[in-house]
Each structure stands twice: as C-alpha cells, then as structure tokens.
C-alpha cells in the first residue's frame, strides 16, 4: 500500500463549480498536512497547511482533515480557469522527521 494515494485525474469542471480533491494515507503517525498547487514546470506553491482534524478555510479554499479515516480533502469554491493546475497533497511530522511525502498530484482543468 502506498503511503499517500491521490487520484491523478484529470478532473474537468465548469467555471464556478465546487471542486473536491482528496488524498488518503496509510501511516497514522502523520501530523501535518499540506496542499500545494503546481503549474506546469513550476515549483509547488503552498495553499493550505493544517495539523489537526477538522476544517480550515482561506478564501475560496477549505482544507479538511479526518485523521480517524486517514483522509484529507481540499475544496475550491467558485473555481476559475486560473485554478487549472496540478494539486499536490503532502504530509509530514512522523516523529523525528520533517521530510514531506507527496501524493502523485491531481490535474485539474476548469473550463471557461
């Protein structure tokens, strides 16, 4: 079983839709959860950083963590064509290490 699983997509949605992106993980020791956005051939750009179960909201983005199910989500409201990118989940915080374990990324296309 992979440490972090993420559907690669592509996921195509119309402009204005609510987008739901998800990751599951196998190691219950992960403590910190991140979502990054990556445009083609660019570096990952941090969107959200959470460390507890529950929801965290920032503008059009909401990150949700369910540690009991080992499942995290990113919701994008009122999606725009400029949101078209690959979204990466990442996790870290197993005792003594801060290396990030990334998912494979979900490619999102928002159609105008």
């Amino acid at each position: 079983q992979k440490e972090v699983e993420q559907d690669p997509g592509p996921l195509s949605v119309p402009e204005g839709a609510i987008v739901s992106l998800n990751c599951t993980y196998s190691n219950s020791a992960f403590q910190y959860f991140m979502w990054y956005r990556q445009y083609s051939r660019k570096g990952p750009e941090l969107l959200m950083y959470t460390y507890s179960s529950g929801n965290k909201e920032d503008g059009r983005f909401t990150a949700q963590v369910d540690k009991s199910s080992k499942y995290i989500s990113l919701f994008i409201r009122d999606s725009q064509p400029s949101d078209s990118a690959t979204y990466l989940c990442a996790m870290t915080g197993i005792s003594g290490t801060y290396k990030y374990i990334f998912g494979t990324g979900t490619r999102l296309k928002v159609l105008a």
Partner: protein
Amino acid sequence: EPEVTQTPSHQVTQMGQEVILRCVPISNHLYFYWYRQILGQKVEFLVSFYNNEISEKSEIFDDQFSVERPDGSNFTLKIRSTKLEDSAMYFCASSAMNTEAFFGQGTRLTVV
C-alpha cells in the same frame, strides 16, 4: 513577500559531468531541503539540512550527491558524476521550525 530562489532555471550537462544547483532559502528559515521531480512523476524527498549538517536523506541521495551551505545565504546541491536518470526538476525548499515548507521554482536538469 520572501521567496526561495534557485539558479539556474535550466541546466544541460553531459553524462559524467559535475553540476551544482544553487538555492537561496528564505532568510530566517532554519531547515533546508532538496526534492526532485522526474517528468510525470511525484515530488520525491532527497535530503534535509539543519544546523549545518544533513538531518535526513533518502535512498536516492547516494554518494554522488552532496549538499553544502557555503555561506549564510546559499544552499547548494552537487551531483558529482551525472547520469541520464538524474534528469529531473530539482526543487529547493526551506522552513522555519515545525512549520510549512516553501519551495523554489526549481532547476530543470537535463543530462545528455
């Protein structure tokens, strides 16, 4: 806004040659990282660096790789004798203690 900067943006090198990839982390950050992303694959951890020494490395980071913080601002990754399979995007990242990591825009390394 402070950012991680990487140079060069693209490096082409012949197999067997040495390359040095350079990074300027965010100035008050204490933890430094190198990750790589082979085209079409996920972002993979290479090495983390704290307090002037390697704190963790992956199995990818073999004897051909080394890192250095030669002065108070730069952080470098050296590949001693490049192989074709070293072709990838290399990302530098930095973080303060126990917080999210910020990534640079990457160096695209092409080994021919």
